[in-house]
Structures are given as C-alpha cells and as structure tokens.
C-alpha cells in the first residue's frame, strides 16, 4: 500500500497519532506531527512511497511538535524530535516541513556509519548513477531537479549513500529541497512537478520542496553503480562545458564532501577510492538547463 492510497483524513489522523510509517529507500521512517497543517503537502511529497505496517523495524522515529508554553501561540515554534530526543533549537512554526526534512537528513548522517554518506546529489539512468557533489549555491539541487524531470531517476538531492561492501549506491528518493531563484526556475521548467508553497526566511533563504517522481520512488531499490562524478558550477551566461578531472582531485572532492569520512577511517578511504576509480570524473560549468541536460544525455549515451 502506498501513501497516496490513504484518504487525506486517514493521513492526517495517522500523522497526528501513531505516525505515518513509510520506507524511504534503505530507511524505514515513522513520521509524526503535532503540527497538523503540514499534512496536505507532506502527503503529496511522499505520495508514492510504500507504507510499512507497524510490525516492521523502524530506523528513525521522528516528529514535529509545536513549541512549549507560550511559543505555541506567540511567534509559534516547531520542534524536531527523534525518539524523544530534541537535537536542535526550535524553528518558526511555518518552517515545520523543511525542518522535518532537515531532521531526517540529520538522522541519516548522525546514525549511519555503516555506509559512506556524501553531501551530494545523485541521479541515475538505469543502473548507472551520476554523483553531483558541490557546495551550496553551485546549483546542484537545481540541476538535480531538472534531470529528474527529464527522465533521470532521483536517488537523493542532498545525501548520496555508498555501501561499504559492494560500493553500490543506495537511493532515498525523498523530496528535493529547492532554494531561492531555483524554485521559480523549476516551476517553469517542470510545470507538472509538485512543489510545496515556498517557506520564507529560513537559514537557507526561501525553500520549497519538490516531490520525487513516481518512477524514482518505484525503482529506488534498483542496484545502482556510480558511473560519473560531476562537480557542477552554475556560471551565468556560460556554455555547458565538461572538463575531465584527475583522479586525485576527484578523490579530494568526494572525501571533502563525505560526512563521515573521518569516522570510517580506512573503510572510508577505500570506498571513496573505489568510487573515483569506477567513475568518469568531470567538473561542469553551465547556465542553461536544457544545455546541461543535453550534456548528461550524451554522457549516458556514450557508454550504452
């Protein structure tokens, strides 16, 4: 059974009660909320995710609750809670939905040392994936959202997960977080995609979440290997241009962006090294999304 098969009343009732139990790639999550107004958008964002029953193991028990005391009404707040622990300061209540997503990302990075977790987007064609590591502002999420709306499968827009044993990528197919100008760009580029209402004045500016495509969610468990590592950089007015990157530089890019490289020690070193060896590595400058997509199509076509 999928989330979209719940009526909106059922969804809201579960969300406020025991929680929505769903599978996001390798992680089972239980989402609860004492902030009812996020139900509508949340159910659209996770519409295609499979529900799991309450006899299953849950990796992350997370929830959003209203602020304590007067902060329920006066400049209302939302708190993120993972299994009765509150790891962060509260945020304004209208940021509840982004907070839930950021909180889930935090759970994955804080609790998962059995895999290499890289701060990078990843998208796939069939069983071959492109990893896009890059600092905020490089246009990584925009490019990722555009690719996903042009036939690429979303693995993740923020956290790329690499298995330490097989070196395969694990997809999450969770919502894509779009910031500032990229919100309107993607709205125009993919009018059919579901985007939440923009949330203003977060620490990252204005944020809207885009639902993953149905195909991405349905194929999330397909075994996938990294085939390309592309370091994107948005450069206004530039032509789309791929520049091959040496293995050493590519290694440093991945290691720098790995959240738990320092914790994994030798295993992290091996996982990064293996990924770099099996990928063609590039830096990529672009400004127009259509041109960028064409470059990726060519990459995918080169090796089929």
């Amino acid at each position, binding site marked *: 059974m999928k989330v979209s098969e719940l009526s909106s009343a059922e969804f809201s009732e579960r969300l406020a009660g025991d929680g929505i139990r769903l599978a996001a790639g390798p992680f089972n999550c239980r989402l609860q909320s004492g902030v009812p107004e996020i139900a509508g958008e949340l159910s659209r964002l996770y519409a295609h995710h499979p529900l799991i029953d309450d006899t299953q*193991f849950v*990796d992350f028990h997370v929830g959003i609750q209203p602020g304590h005391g007067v902060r329920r009404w006066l400049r209302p707040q939302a708190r993120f809670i993972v299994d009765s622990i509150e790891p*962060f300061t509260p945020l304004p209540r209208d940021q509840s939905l982004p907070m839930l997503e950021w909180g889930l990302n935090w759970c994955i990075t804080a609790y*998962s040392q059995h895999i290499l977790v890289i701060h990078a987007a990843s998208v796939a064609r069939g069983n071959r994936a492109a990893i896009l590591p890059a600092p905020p502002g490089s246009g990584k999420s925009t490019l990722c959202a555009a690719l996903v709306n042009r036939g690429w499968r979303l693995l993740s827009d923020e956290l790329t997960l690499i298995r330490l044993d097989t070196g395969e990528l694990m997809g999450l197919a969770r919502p894509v977080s779009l910031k500032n100008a990229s919100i309107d760009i993607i709205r125009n580029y993919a009018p059919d995609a579901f985007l939440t209402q923009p949330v203003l004045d977060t620490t990252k500016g204005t944020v809207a979440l885009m639902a993953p495509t149905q195909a991405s969610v349905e194929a999330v468990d397909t075994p996938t290997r990294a085939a390309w590592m592309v370091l994107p950089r948005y450069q206004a007015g530039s032509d789309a241009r791929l520049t091959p990157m040496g293995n050493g530089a590519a290694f440093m890019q991945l290691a720098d962006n790995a959240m738990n490289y320092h914790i994994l020690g030798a295993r992290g070193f091996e996982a990064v090294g293996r990924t770099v060896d099996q990928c063609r590595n590039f830096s990529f400058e672009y400004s127009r999304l259509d041109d960028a997509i064409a470059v990726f199509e060519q990459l995918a076509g080169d090796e089929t």
Partner: protein
Amino acid sequence: MNHLLAALRDPQSVLQLSPSQWDLLIRQTRHANLLGRLYERLCAAGLEADIPQRPRNHLQSGAIMATQQQYSIRREARLLRDALAPYEIPLILLKGAAYVAGKLPAAQGRLFADIDILVPHERLDAAESALMLTGWQSSVTDAYDQRYYRRWMHELPAMRHIFRGTTLDVHHTILPPTARLKPDARLLIEASVEIPDLPGVRTLALEDLILHSASHLFHEGEPDNLLRDLTDLDLLLQHLGRDDTAWDALLARAGRLQLSGPLGLALRYTESLLNTPIPARIGKQVGNDTTGSAGQRLLDLLYSRMLRPQHPSTADRLTPLARKALYIRAHWLRMPPLLLAYHLAHKAIFPPKLEELPPMDEKKAA
C-alpha cells in the same frame, strides 16, 4: 519491557526478537549509549550473522563510532603526555581513556564525552599552565563556578582544546574533598601502572579503576550513563576475576581507600542486573545474598529504575522520583549540609543559563 538488559544478560535471547522488538531494543540501546558495546557483545557470543540487517546497521554504526574514538583517545594521550612531560608531571589516565589506553575489555564499544586525568594535588597549578600553553582552555567562564570548582571540587573546571575540540577533566583526586568518603589520591598515584606500548602514559591499577568507576557511578553518575557505567564495571570485574585471589585484594583495597560502600553497591548491582560472575564468598562478604537494611532496600528501589536505559519505554511512575532522589543523594554525599545549602541557594538566586541546543547545522542538516 527492558530488552537491553535482557540482551546484555543473555545475548542468545535476541534470537527470539521480532522486528518491532528489535526496534525497541535499538532505541533503548541508543538512549543508554550502548550500541557499540551491545554489538561487540553479540559478536563475541557468535550471533553476528543472526542480527537482522536493519538493527545490525545501527549497532555497527555505534561500534564504528567507538573504534574511531579510540584512535583519537590514544592520540590525545600521547599529546597530553608530551604537554606534561617538560614539567615532569606524570600522565595518569582515568575511566574510559584508561580502558582504551590499557586495551582493557571495558574499552569495547565505549563512547566518550571527555578524557579524565589525575594529577598530584601539589602539581595542579603547574599542570594547568602546561595544558594552557598547549591549547587547552577552561570552558567555565562564570566566576562563582570557577571558585566553586577550585575550592570544593576534586577536579578543575572542564578544559577544551581550542583546535581539536576535545574535552578534558583534570582531577586531583577521585571524590570531592568535601565528600564523606575520603580516598587518598596519593595511594592511587603510587599504584598507577605504565602502559607497555605507550611509554610515559599511566593508568590507575585495575583494582583502583574498578573502585573509581564504582564511586563515580554511585556518587555523581549522569543518569543517562548509569547503565553504561554499570556495564563498564561488569567488564572490569570479569577481567579482574581471571585471578581468583584478586577479589580479596579488591575488598582490602576498597577498605584502605574508604570505598567499601560504593564497591558493595557495584558488586550488588552487577551481579543482580548483569549476572556478573562474582565468587559466592565475596558476595557474602558484601551482603549480596541479603535483602539488606531498609536503606539498602530504598536504594534498590531507586537504582533498579535508574540502571535502565533512560527511554520512555522503560520508565514507570516512580522513574522521575528516582531520578530526583538520586540527584539529591549525590549532592548530599558530596558536601556537608551547610555548604550544600549555600551552593543550592546561590544556584537558586543566580540560576545557570539553560544549556542552549545547537541550531540546525548547515552542513549536517543540509
């Protein structure tokens, strides 16, 4: 249902767990800071292949985190040794850092918040200067707290390294000088032992590590780590128990250091909760075989609640009360009534600032 205690007592019992019971076990274990240790224990019992994939991911994550911390502890130990050596101050590690440096079984899967060291009282000032010169800074800024630590406590206010972020507790003895029990730190220092593969790095002797662990647990342990500390004691006692005569030496040592009380509680609760094998004659000597006095029964009532994972699923109606009662007991044991009244009055009039939670981290919560 306390799945964690069941799994620690009898690792084979995890074979019967359903997925949702595994779920609860992992949550309880995370709250008790014991993921890594439980993993090591299940592996040692030959059960690694029987742990289902999802719970195994969480247990393994805890173990990997612990392994990484052990590398950094050994590195910090070498750096601390080098910082103190020019002033001829010995580096004596306590608690977790000592287990790791000495490669004791009690290091298994253990996570750390800080490193604890012991310095002779008369060298405390010199040690503090030496540490400040190598980048360690006092983390307490409040004047009252600074004075409170320096006058009444057995340790300096916690220090933090400006670059590495490691936290360091510098002790000059193992209980506050104001406490009812007064173990003599000189005896501890005299008996300390050098680590073979870390020249210049010392730890307390095994008996003293046990007695320190016990006095810490039953005097000032943080509620969230009490069960973790009890599993430390379980592993330390099992290690000691390789030599049957060591038990009598332990009791004698406890008498000499005025720590028979905490040791008695340690033996009582490791045996009753974790099935730690303790020879009958030793158990008899410390009264493990009796229900004990009314006071002992009250402590049993309190500790049976606090020596659990501090997770909602293992709490009952008395848990909040037990938490408060043990907090008061800890302070009562730590200082005489008048000083306690003065300290509590000051804290009531000038309440400490609530510890701020970190904001959502830009990179981590990306």
